[in-house]
Each structure stands twice: as structure tokens, then as C-alpha cells.
């Protein structure tokens, strides 16, 4: 799949093509034949990647690891209920309620997850509403307009400027045809299309025009050589869908965590199941113990917490113009260690701009800022007047009418990128172009073409010439002092040293030079002879064009560096940036178009690798290079090579973010741990493959994303620590219940309420916690070492804070029991008689007799008391989790308003559950006495003090967590 597509149609001549596609290059196919081929090959359109059906996705939500465990638990409850019912034992529908509650939990969290996924799928679906495209086709000698989807192999099509190429076509005839391949290659430079085969590779040759590229000007006739998914672009699109979905790091983390939790739950449950059987409990009872331990151990609310935390951050990012399609991508961005960026449009403004001028033997710097706010240059020289005149006149680009009020930089222009740049430059620096052109009306013109490599325009008494650096220098009449400067640039195989000269980044061989000559009035030259007239010209100056970097990029790159993220530039065919200068990717000059040189940047740590070099590399060499050079520029890489680069980075253990806009980037976007597409310039395929879209095309937004991602990882860690802690006080009652045979202190439904109701709010509110220190000065986390849940965190949560909480719960439990008449000594071992439904006169420590249901309500009271104890301790827990190193008071205990509100809300829910009438029989909550709220509070205080001491220790002795 990743092999380059082999095509030889560009090498065949017309006769061979006619035979190969059994068609006629003059009349085209017959209607009948076309219809037959349409049936055979299918319509000429890109098949959207097949989505997973909704029910399957929903099913997947219901069948995760934790969910399966919950299903098992629910099934056990149902079986237990069924058996009890079968024994005619009515009145104990607790197991049924619990089963229903468990199923409800699974289904509700499943719906939640499905809804999130559904929303993101909808965003993707909205990219697909493409307008049907028309194509001009010659069939049976007649010119027809048909839907582009109906094109078949062998069809003869005509394209003209402004059309989108309807299929991959082999050009048979062309008149000044130029296409914009930027959606395929990312390069905005127009490329000429002509019938000759100019290159071995079908991607580089001029006689093939690609599906979905734009024809900018001229006309061409061609033969359809491939349609639909078999076109080059279709291949790339299917390459993107063929790349398997990589699991996001947070997904890996959560899976890792879920595995551990599920394993522990089953281990604990199994141990107690066996213990219970050995002690002599009936099988069914033991099974219910097993289930209860699973329910107590599985953090049911965790997935919801994680999702909510992530979607909160996604919303925050959306406000900063980053739209996140895949929630987990937020966190991935935070753990990114390498950003592979496509230059065009991401790092740069994606518009050619005049950067420097050379006249009077000096380099002048033009204003390249996006809003034209920079400094201008001295415009008093006479050479400048001449140069600006040539730039204005020898230029075929025009502003589209009706844009007088639009700032020059934003006006739409008809013409190619270079000429547009010059036009805008002229408009800004020397006034309205139209007026100047009116003063020197055009007499004759020779457009730029690849053989001449220059353009001639004769006006009233003037010849103007423009051309590229590959111009035939012998045409200059008065090169004069220029020659010394020009010489290094004349040779495309420039030695490195001369490129390193101060001039090189500013005036590259791409720079158009301009000359003029005054002609005697009344000269009338036919256009074919214009090349001859253009002799003995006066050299006016040179202009260099660049695609300037965005204003925010250098700063953003610097920020990435301090954050330990490597930025790699994956330039596309033909162009690439150079890494250098103070601000990292600050200067982005053009690398010679035809250069096969290995171009070392000023800093030895950076390196340029071209696509052809890459292709010649032995496997493993790339990894070696990536390891040794922290910064690297890849030039002229194909989509497949981009994919290879991304994979190599990933093999080195990096978490790779890829930014891009063209179709050519989409496989790499898809393969990357996080793909970032450009919202404005990005093609649909890129947006489709990406996980995140930058609405403002701004590289700096990625940095914001990284910052948010790191923050959310930190906060998720806190949130999970908070969530984990209460597992122990939820589990401990069962252990004591089984081993010490006390009446059950905490019910399963109560546990579900803690997990899914009261504790959700504080754990989500931790997502709003501010960073403890400047997270952008830390290195990216090592995905193998720095996990979401690690050993010290789990040990601290479980064996220290969790145990303190359990003690708080049991103290409160024994207090509530003793004050109602059951002293601790009696309570131990009481369970069998306590739970005997036929015992209606059980004596307490005072000789009072209790009926079964009186005991049951007392048990519910204990549930509630234990519940409140956990809640009280969890308030202390959420406060200590706000920070991992700083003291709570350094962070400000009430700075996080959301957290304060969440705590208040949590207490309110607790009160509601306790004191709302009807609760005892529905959810087993009883109204409890005020002092039972107070009993656990000293333990909460103990947690706070204990953790402050720990944090003090961590601050005093850094590195010893």
C-alpha cells in the first residue's frame, strides 16, 4: 500500500494510448462504450471511508473492560435474585434493584460515550458535502457537459483555466496550460502542463494532470487514464483510510489503568469468593460478595470524569480556534514530543510576498508582515522608479474588480502566485497599478514560459522583461557591478560556502530580475519576435519572493523548544524551509528548486534531508539521523515519505503531532498520534484525517494546545488520584463484613451513588485547577515512565489516604451502632442473626428486641453514616489533590471557584440523599443525626495535615516523591 503508484501512461505516445484505452483521440468514446465502462469501473468519485455502523459503535461502548465486569456483576445480581425468588423468599428485591442500577450505569455511560463519538463523527460528515462537478467531454465527436462522476477511462476531456481537473488525465494538447498542484503536493507554484513527457516519475512529468487539482490558466485536452479511487489523489485518500487508527496515549493510559483495576477487582473478588466458600457461606452468597467487591473496586465514574475533563478542555481550546474532533487528542497534544509541520500555510502565510529587493548595488528589505505594518525602504532612488515601473507593467496579474475597499493584502487576484505578489507589492509601494498601466498601454506581450524563462512586454516606447534566476544572463545589457553578486546564483549547483554568504537567504535564484529598455516610438513588433527585441536591456533590479513566516511562528517555535518539543519541517515537493536564525524557524528562505545538495544550516544540530535522499536511505538510517539531529528539515518529500518520517519518529518513542493542509499530508496526519489540519487552507482530506483543526491556521494555536494538553494530564492525574482513594473505604466494609461478620456497613447502591453522583463533581472540578508551575518549561512526559497512574500515586491513595478514610468510616459506623444500642463487642460476629429475616426479636446490648426491618433500617443508617464519612474525607481529599508539591495555602484553597462550588454541591446532594423523604426504601439512605456528620471531620483534618507534611517533605527534598 505504501509503495509509490507505478504509472507509465506519461511515457506512451498517442497511438499506444489509443490502443491501451481503445479510444480515439479525436472523437472520444461512444456513448454506449462510456456507459458500459461506467458500469464496469464505477463512478468517478472518491469513496468516503466506510464508517462503522452506529449500533456497532454503541455496542463497543457497552463492551469495554469495565463494562464487561459490570455486566457480570449485574448478571450475578439477577441470578441471586432469581434463585431467591425461586426459593419463595419474597421481600428481598435488593439484588434486583442493584442489577437494574448496574445495567443503568453501563447503559448511561455507554450513551454518554456514544454521544461524544457521534458528535465528532458529525463534524467529519459535514466536510463531505461537495458540490457536484461538471466536466467537458468529447464523446462520439461531440462536445458534451457531463457530471464529472460519469467520466470513464478513455474519455477525452477538455479543461480550461478555472476548472478543477475531473480525473487523472494524460495531456494530449495544451495551450499555455498551468495547474495548481497544491492540494496534491502542497506547493502553490503553478506548474505548466504540456503533452511532452518531461520526467521519469508520473508525479513530476508535465503531461499528466491530476484529479482535483486546479487548472489556473490556458486550455488542454486530455485522455482520462484513471478515475475515482484509482487516481493519484484517490490512492492517497485511501492510503489515509488504510492507515490504522493509532490509539491515543490517553486511551493507552486509561486502558492500562482499567486493566490493572479490573485485574485487581477480579483478584480481590476471587480471593474473597474462595474465602467465603471456605468459611462456609453458600455459593450464591459468596457470588454476591464477589459482585459487591467488583462494584466497590471498579471506579464507575472514572470514564465519565475523564470524558468531561477532556471535553471541558476541548471547549476551552475551541475558544482559541482549535477544534478538537477526537476528545482524547487534547491530552495527546500535551504529551507531544515532536511536531512535524508542513511548512506551507502553517508556518508561513501561504502567499508569496516580496521580501527583498536589489537595486543600486544594495539589498533593500521589504515589508513582509501579514498586516503590512513593518518598515519600508528608501524609495527615492531612480533605479527604484524604473524597477517599480517594470514590476507594475511586466505583470499579467490583475485585481478582481470591485475590491477597492479591501486592504491590498487581502484582495483576490487573477494570475499566478509570483505575479500576484509583485502586483500587490507594486500597489502598496507605488500607488494604483491600473493607472500606471493606463499610462503605458500594452502593445505586445510574450508570456512567461518554461523555455524562455522570461516574460516580455512592450508598451509605448518601453520593453520590460521579467524572468527567474535561471534567466539567460547574456540578455542583460548593463550588468555592470551586479555580476560579482550574481555569479554564485547563476549556478544551480552552488557550493555551500557561497550559499552561506550573507546574501544567500535573501536573494535566492528564485528571485525574478527585471530589466527595461526604451524603444523608439511607433515600434510594432509581432509577439513571436519579442524575444529578439528584448536585447540590450537596462538591468533595473532583482526582487526576491518568499512565503513569509507568520508573525506568531518564531515565538511559538521558541516556546516549543523550551517545552522540550522538537519541531520538524516536512517540506513538500520542491520547496522547503530552512531552520535557522534566532527564533528557530524564523527565517524561511527558499531552498533551490533544482538543488540536489544536502544543505546544512548554520546550526549543525539542524539538517536538511531531501525526499530523494530519504528514498536512498537504508532502513534505520533515518532513525539514526533523527536521533542525532534535534532539528531537521525534510525537503521534497512525497506523501509516502512523510508517513515514513512519522513512523520513524514514533519508533523512537516520540509522540508525534503532524500539521498539514494538503491531501498529500493526510496519510501522515492519520498516522500521527495527533493530526492537526488547517481550517482555512486545509483540504477536506486533511481535515478528515486530522484529530484537530486549527480554525485560524495559526501554528501558535498548537502551542496553546500543548499547554492545555499538559495541564489536563496533570489535572487528570489529580482527578484519578482523588477517584482512586475512595475505593479503599468502599472495599474495606466488605472485607470486615466477611471476616468479622459485622452487619454490612456500606451497601452497593450507596457505593454507586458515591461513584456516580456525589464524587463526580469534585473530580471534574479538578480539571479547572491552575497549573502548579510553568508547565511549558518541563520536558514532555515519557509515555513509558510517566504514566497517568503510577505506583507511588496508587500506593499513597490506597494504602494511606484510603485507609485513613476507612478508619473514619468505621469509627462513624461503630458510633452510630453503639448510640442506637449495638455495642462494638456485640456487633462483631452478629451478621448471621442480624441478617436472619425470620428473627423478629433480636436482642441488642440493652436487651431491647429488634424486628428484622428495624435492623434493616439501622443498617441503612449505617450505610448513610459511612457514606457521609467518605464524603467528608473526600472533601479533604479533593483539597489535598489540588496540588502535588505546593502547599494548599500557596495554591490558594479557594482560588478554584468551580471546586468550591463542587464541594458545596456535593454536600447538598449528600443532604438531599439523607433527608429527602422516601429515600430509605428507594436508595437505602436514612436521615442521620447531626453529630454523625461531625465524627469523620477530625479524620478529614488528619488527611489535610498528613498531606501537608508530605508536601513539605517533597519540597524540602526534591526528587523523593
Amino acid at each position, binding site marked *: 500500500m505504501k509503495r509509490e503508484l507505478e504509472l507509465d501512461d506519461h511515457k506512451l505516445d498517442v497511438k499506444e494510448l489509443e490502443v491501451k484505452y481503445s479510444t480515439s483521440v479525436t472523437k472520444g468514446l461512444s456513448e454506449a462504450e462510456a456507459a458500459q465502462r461506467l458500469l464496469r469501473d464505477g463512478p468517478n468519485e472518491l469513496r468516503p471511508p466506510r464508517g462503522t455502523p452506529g449500533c456497532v459503535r454503541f455496542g463497543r461502548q457497552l463492551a469495554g473492560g469495565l463494562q464487561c465486569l459490570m455486566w457480570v456483576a449485574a448478571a450475578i445480581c439477577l441470578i441471586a435474585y432469581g434463585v431467591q425468588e425461586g426459593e419463595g423468599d419474597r421481600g428481598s428485591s435488593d439484588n434486583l434493584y442493584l442489577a437494574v442500577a448496574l445495567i443503568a450505569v453501563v447503559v448511561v455511560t455507554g450513551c454518554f460515550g456514544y454521544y461524544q463519538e457521534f458528535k465528532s463523527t458529525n463534524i467529519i460528515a459535514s466536510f463531505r458535502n461537495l458540490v457536484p462537478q461538471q466536466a467537458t467531454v468529447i464523446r462520439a465527436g461531440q462536445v458534451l457537459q457531463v457530471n464529472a462522476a460519469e467520466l470513464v477511462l478513455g474519455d477525452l476531456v477538455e479543461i480550461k483555466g478555472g476548472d478543477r481537473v475531473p480525473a487523472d488525465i494524460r495531456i494530449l494538447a495544451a495551450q499555455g496550460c498551468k495547474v495548481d498542484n497544491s492540494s496534491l503536493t502542497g506547493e502553490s507554484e503553478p506548474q505548466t502542463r504540456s503533452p511532452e513527457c518531461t520526467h521519469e516519475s508520473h508525479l513530476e512529468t508535465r503531461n499528466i494532470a491530476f484529479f482535483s487539482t486546479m487548472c489556473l490558466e490556458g486550455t488542454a485536452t486530455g485522455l482520462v487514464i484513471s478515475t475515482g479511487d484509482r487516481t493519484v489523489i484517490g490512492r492517497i485518500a485511501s492510503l489515509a483510510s488504510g492507515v490504522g487508527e493509532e490509539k491515543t496515549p490517553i486511551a493507552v493510559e486509561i486502558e492500562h489503568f482499567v486493566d490493572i483495576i479490573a485485574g485487581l477487582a477480579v483478584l480481590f473478588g476471587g480471593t474473597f469468593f474462595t474465602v467465603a466458600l471456605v468459611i462456609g457461606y453458600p455459593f450464591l452468597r459468596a457470588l454476591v460478595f464477589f459482585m459487591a467487591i467488583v462494584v466497590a473496586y471498579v471506579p464507575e465514574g472514572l470514564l465519565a470524569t475523564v470524558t468531561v475533563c477532556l471535553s471541558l478542555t476541548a471547549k476551552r481550546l475551541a475558544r482559541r480556534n482549535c477544534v478538537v474532533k477526537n476528545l482524547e487528542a487534547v491530552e495527546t497534544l500535551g504529551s507531544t514530543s515532536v511536531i512535524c509541520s508542513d511548512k506551507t500555510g502553517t508556518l508561513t502565510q501561504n502567499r508569496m510576498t516580496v521580501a527583498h529587493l536589489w537595486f543600486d548595488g544594495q539589498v533593500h528589505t521589504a515589508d513582509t508582515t501579514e498586516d503590512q505594518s513593518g518598515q519600508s525602504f528608501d524609495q527615492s532612488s531612480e533605479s527604484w522608479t524604473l524597477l517599480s515601473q517594470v514590476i507594475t507593467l511586466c505583470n499579467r496579474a490583475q485585481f478582481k474588480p470591485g475590491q477597492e475597499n479591501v486592504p491590498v493584502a487581502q484582495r483576490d487576484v487573477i494570475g499566478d502566485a509570483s505575479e500576484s505578489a509583485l502586483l500587490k507589492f507594486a500597489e502598496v509601494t507605488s500607488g494604483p497599478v491600473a493607472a500606471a498601466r493606463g499610462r503605458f498601454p500594452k502593445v505586445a506581450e510574450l508570456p512567461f514560459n518554461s523555455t524562455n524563462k522570461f516574460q516580455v512586454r512592450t508598451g509605448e516606447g518601453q520593453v520590460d522583461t521579467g524572468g527567474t534566476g535561471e534567466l539567460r544572463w547574456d540578455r542583460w545589457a548593463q550588468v555592470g557591478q551586479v555580476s560579482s553578486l550574481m555569479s554564485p546564483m547563476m549556478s544551480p549547483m552552488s557550493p555551500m560556502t557561497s550559499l552561506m554568504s550573507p546574501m544567500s537567504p535573501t536573494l535566492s535564484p528564485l528571485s525574478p530580475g527585471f530589466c527595461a529598455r526604451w524603444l523608439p516610438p511607433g515600434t510594432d513588433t509581432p509577439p513571436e519576435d519579442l524575444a529578439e527585441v528584448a536585447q540590450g536591456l537596462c538591468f533595473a533590479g532583482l526582487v526576491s519572493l518568499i512565503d513569509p513566516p507568520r508573525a506568531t511562528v518564531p515565538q511559538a517555535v521558541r516556546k516549543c523548544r523550551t517545552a522540550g518539543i522538537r519541531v520538524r519541517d516536512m517540506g513538500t515537493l520542491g520547496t522547503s524551509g530552512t531552520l535557522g536564525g534566532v527564533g528557530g524557524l524564523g527565517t524561511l528562505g527558499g531552498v533551490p528548486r533544482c538543488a540536489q545538495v544536502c544543505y546544512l544550516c548554520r546550526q549543525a544540530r539542524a539538517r536538511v534531508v531531501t525526499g530523494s535522499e530519504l528514498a536512498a536511505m537504508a532502513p534505520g538510517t533515518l532513525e539514526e539521523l533523527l536521533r542525532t539531529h534535534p532539528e531537521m528539515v525534510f525537503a521534497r518529500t512525497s506523501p509516502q515519505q512523510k508517513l515514513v518520517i512519522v513512523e520513524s519518529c514514533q519508533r523512537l518513542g516520540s509522540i508525534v503531532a503532524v500539521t498539514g493542509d494538503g491531501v498529500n499530508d493526510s496519510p501522515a496526519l492519520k498516522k500521527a498520534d495527533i493530526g492537526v489540519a488547517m481550517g482555512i487552507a486545509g483540504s477536506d482530506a486533511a481535515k478528515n484525517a486530522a484529530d484537530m483543526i486549527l480554525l485560524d491556521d495559526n501554528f501558535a494555536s498548537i502551542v496553546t494546545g500543548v499547554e492545555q494538553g499538559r495541564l489536563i494530564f496533570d489535572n487528570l492525574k489529580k482527578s484519578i488520584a482523588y477517584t482512586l482513594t475512595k475505593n479503599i473505604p468502599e472495599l474495606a466494609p466488605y472485607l470486615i463484613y466477611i471476616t468479622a461478620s459485622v452487619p454490612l456497613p456500606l451497601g452497593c447502591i450507596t457505593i454507586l451513588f458515591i461513584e456516580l453522583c456525589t464524587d463526580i463533581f469534585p473530580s471534574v472540578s479538578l480539571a479547572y485547577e491552575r497549573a502548579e508551575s510553568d508547565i511549558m518549561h518541563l520536558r514532555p512526559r515519557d509515555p513509558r515512565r510517566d504514566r497517568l497512574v503510577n505506583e507511588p500515586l496508587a500506593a499513597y491513595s490506597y494504602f494511606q489516604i484510603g485507609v485513613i478514610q476507612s478508619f473514619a468510616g468505621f469509627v462513624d459506623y461503630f458510633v452510630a451502632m453503639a448510640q442506637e444500642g449495638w455495642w462494638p463487642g456485640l456487633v462483631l460476629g452478629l451478621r448471621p442473626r442480624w441478617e436472619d429475616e425470620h428473627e423478629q*426479636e433480636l436482642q441488642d446490648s440493652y*436487651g*431491647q428486641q429488634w424486628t428484622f426491618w428495624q435492623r434493616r433500617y439501622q443498617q441503612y443508617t449505617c450505610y448513610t453514616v459511612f457514606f457521609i464519612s467518605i464524603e467528608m474525607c473526600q472533601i479533604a481529599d479533593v483539597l489535598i489533590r489540588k496540588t502535588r508539591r505546593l502547599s494548599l495555602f500557596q495554591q490558594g484553597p479557594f482560588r478554584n471557584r468551580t471546586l468550591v462550588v463542587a464541594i458545596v454541591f456535593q454536600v447538598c446532594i449528600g443532604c438531599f440523599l439523607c433527608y429527602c423523604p422516601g429515600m430509605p426504601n428507594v436508595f437505602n439512605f436514612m436521615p442521620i443525626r447531626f453529630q454523625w456528620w461531625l465524627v469523620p471531620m477530625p479524620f478529614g483534618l488528619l488527611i489535610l495535615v498528613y498531606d501537608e507534611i508530605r508536601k513539605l517533605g517533597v519540597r524540602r527534598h526534591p526528587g523523593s516523591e
Partner: protein
Amino acid sequence: MARGKAKDGDGNWKKFIWNSEKKELLGRTGGSWFKILLFYVIFYGCLAGIFIGTIQVMLLTVSEFEPKYQDRVAPPGLTQVPQVQKTEIAFTASDPRSYELYVRNLDNFLRDYSAEQQTENIVFQDCGDTPSEYKERGPYNDAQGQKKVCKFKREWLENCSGLNDPTYGYKDGKPCILVKLNRIIGFKPQAPANESLPPEIMAKYNPNLIPVHCVAKREEDADKIGTVEYYGMGGYPGFGLQYYPYYGKLLQPRYLQPLVAVQFTNLTYDMEVRVECRAYGQNIVYSDKDRFQGRFDIKFDIKSS
């Protein structure tokens, strides 16, 4: 590739359990494990100390004689003797073995009520043969030693006393059950107000009596339970108020709950008959959930052969 990886993982796993190079067990050296264990021993020791201390302090605040709260145990439950599984009394009148368990249960229960058990006058007090006022016996502490207990004469139960008929009517298919109110410290049941009482109770109304009455649970069974005889103190079908309040097992270790014997003399045979017995009083309430609060129901299934 995948296999190699797995092998790698295996090696790491084994290495994790025992790393011979660094002498590490489960990723820690012996010294490290010792420190960790010592830490946890001390840590849990402290917590356990705090726990035991708190519980002790709490117990100091709780009286030995009187529970702090009784909101879960009051109002009292109403229970019957013999105590039976699934609240069902099933037997064949002609087969002594089928009711042997019930009879033994009744015998055991009534042993404390025998006259010879109530002879010590330090403990027992004659509270009269008719229902009378509550007997207050001072504060709930042992400043005055143990409290006296009202006698309850077994003879009052007549046919169900087991004195004349050691099978309590079971051999004739006329089973007896004993009804009693659960003991609750300090609980003073109040005699019912006049209104809404069944007419049978109104007939034997006494202001110091908590009457007990049994009817068919389902209305269609009303004609199947036949006559119901009640035997209680002084011939009243209920509990006299002089037995209340109860002072707890420390102050009244030999407290006798007042009893009412209920004999079903004409139950329909060979079918399940559900009977519900209620105690009536202003502070005796019934609950839908707790079917033994102030009432109970019991099923009779007497087989003719």
C-alpha cells in the same frame, strides 16, 4: 517481532519479581522493603491507636443502662411464640411428631413464667390481676440496685398455659400461639383511643390495657378461622400497662413480658389460613415495609390426617 516483544516482557516480569543483579524483590531491595514495611506498621499502628481511642471515648459517652437513641427500635414489633420459619404453623392433629417442635418451643418459652420461677420476692412483685397504671421505678441507673419485675401468672393463659394440656391444644387441632410485644427500654405503650377499634375489643375495653386482636388476613378467609379465644391477665385479651416501662437487661434481668395467648378453636382444615394479629395502642403503629411492627401475620395449615 511480536513474539520477541513478548519474550522481552516475560524477562522483565521475571526480573521484576527477583532481580538478582540489584538483589531486588518486586522492584525493591530488602532494605527498602524493610523501610516501607516499618513505615506502614507505624502508620497503621497510629491509625489503629486513634481508632481504638476514639471508640473508647465514644463508649464512655454511652450509658450502660439506657441507649442514647431509640428512633430505630421504637415503635415496638409484635411477635409470636412458637417462633416458626416462614411464619407458618403446619401440622396434623393426629401426628404428635408434626407439632412436637411447636410444643417444645412453647414449653421452653413458658418455663420462665412458671410459678416456681417467680418466687423470689426481691425480684418479683405482684402487680395485681387486672390491668393498671404504669409502674415507674426511678431513674435508669443502678444507684438503687436492680429493679423489681412484675409477676405474670402462667395460669392466666388457661387452655394455652400448658398446665392442663401439655400440647397447647395442638392434639385437638386447636393450636395456641403466644403474642408478645418486643421489649424496648422506657417504652410506655398507650391504650388505644376509643374510635376505630374493632367491636370485639370495645367489649372488653380497659383504659390500662393494650388489646390484641386476631382476624383473617384476607377478607374471604373471615369465615374460615372460626372462633378465636384470647387468654391474658385477668381474662383481658391484652397487655396490662403495669408491666411497662422496661428498664433493660442490666436492671431487670428477669423481666417478664406480658403475654396474650390466642387459641384458634375452629380453624378450617386442609387449607392455608392466614391470620393477622394486631396490638392496639396510640403509640403502636404499623408499617407497610415492616410487617412485624405492632402486628404480625401467621399462616395455619392443619391437615386432617
